[in-house]
């Protein structure tokens, strides 16, 4: 049976992980390669590396990092942040990334999704959607959720699928950082309306939250950052718990 995926997300700045990590036995808490390998060892199903610097100077650092991760990590990983062209994607995939995630650039120029899907195949193109509830509507935001767009979240999700996205990474800016649970209702609506997998993000605080996002929220994967970095939730324990709840996971 196809399992629900647990995906730790690592924020990268200048080739190093930011936000603290609370792992013991780490030689270097800021090393994304070492951290990624540990997550893989602990049963993470995929990894997402989000480059939050994304300036031109740092692209080379990022490419070196991707190459290093690919050498050492034997599970799929996605790279996101500042990707806006076929060349950007090509460089990341050639360095060994399995998928890329695009966000603002897709909002700016939706045709980019079609072009990337045609060039590289839908399977490696994730469209990230940051959404916030404003005046009774779910609105797509960019710039880390600060800047509202004209786009309605549910319609945009359908559009990115039609344009060739292989998966959607849906982050609720309303729940992100709250540790009060994922945006299950919205996630369920988006998931029911699409025939591609939905990765839910934003709000994970407890193991129950993952049960909810996979049942009520109908998500295909759950992504979180700090609860894994600070070891508030151990990935193996989480997966054992989910299995007890009748949710299919890879153990």
């Amino acid at each position: 049976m196809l399992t629900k995926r647990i995906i730790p997300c690592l924020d990268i700045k200048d080739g190093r992980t930011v936000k603290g990590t609370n792992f013991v036995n780490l030689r270097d808490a800021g090393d994304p390669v070492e951290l990624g390998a540990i997550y893989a060892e602990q049963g993470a199903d995929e990894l997402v590396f989000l480059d939050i610097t994304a300036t031109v100077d740092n692209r080379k650092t990022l490419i070196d990092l991707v190459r290093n991760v690919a050498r050492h990590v034997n599970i799929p990983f996605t790279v996101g942040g500042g990707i806006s062209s076929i060349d950007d994607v090509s460089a990341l995939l050639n360095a060994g990334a399995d998928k890329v995630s695009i966000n603002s650039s897709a909002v700016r120029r939706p045709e980019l999704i079609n072009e990337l899907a045609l060039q590289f195949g839908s399977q490696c193109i994730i469209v990230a959607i940051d959404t916030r509830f404003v005046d009774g509507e779910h609105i797509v935001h960019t710039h880390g959720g600060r800047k509202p767009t004209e786009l309605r979240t549910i319609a945009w999700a359908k559009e990115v699928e039609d344009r060739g996205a292989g998966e959607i990474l849906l982050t609720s800016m309303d729940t992100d950082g709250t540790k009060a649970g994922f945006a299950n209702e919205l996630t369920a609506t988006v998931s029911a309306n699409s025939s591609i997998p939905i990765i839910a993000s934003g709000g994970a605080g407890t193991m129950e939250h993952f049960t909810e996002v996979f049942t009520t929220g109908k998500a295909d994967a759950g992504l979180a950052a700090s609860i894994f970095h600070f070891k508030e939730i151990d990935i193996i324990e989480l997966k054992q718990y989910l299995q007890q709840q009748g949710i299919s996971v890879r153990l």
Partner: protein
Amino acid sequence: MKTVIIKYNAGNVQSVMYAMDRIGASYLWTDDEQEIRTADKVIFPGVGEASTAMSYLREKGLDKVIPSLTQPVLGTCVGMQLMCRHSEENHTTCMGIFDLDVKRFDSTNFKVPHVGWNNIYNLKTELTQGLREDSYMYFVHSYFAELSPYTVAECNYVQPFSAMLQKDNFYAAQFHTEISGKEGQLILENFLKL
């Protein structure tokens, strides 16, 4: 031992090369017929679309070379599909090493593509030696090979389908051995040991 990874327009095969590096195996990435024919092992990876890949293989004559190889050959993902008779993906005539058809998953009640980790079972090939039944592998695909006499591992999504095929010296896996954790790595190692 000489292992060749067949070079063609099959998207990104960097992950396959890194997986080889991780197990300490050397390889040559080439589309040269002589190099391929003289290799001890041949890996035929693939990410991408069937018809484009097949036209490239035809252009290079590799569509004739690959089926005539006598050393162990391992095709993965689209590589496996191209080793079948025909693919529904853009109605592509493939190499026909495995006499069976590749079809698209019915998306009426399921999300397509099939993305993520799924268990493989009814394992009966040397390549899965040491793996337990129901080991998880990483899949990303919209098309599948039906169950057939060549099926040596099964998977179930929408319906049971071939996770692995074997006929004589030809082996194939629908999943990505190179990013399927330790279990995927074991399959690669078993192949290199043949």
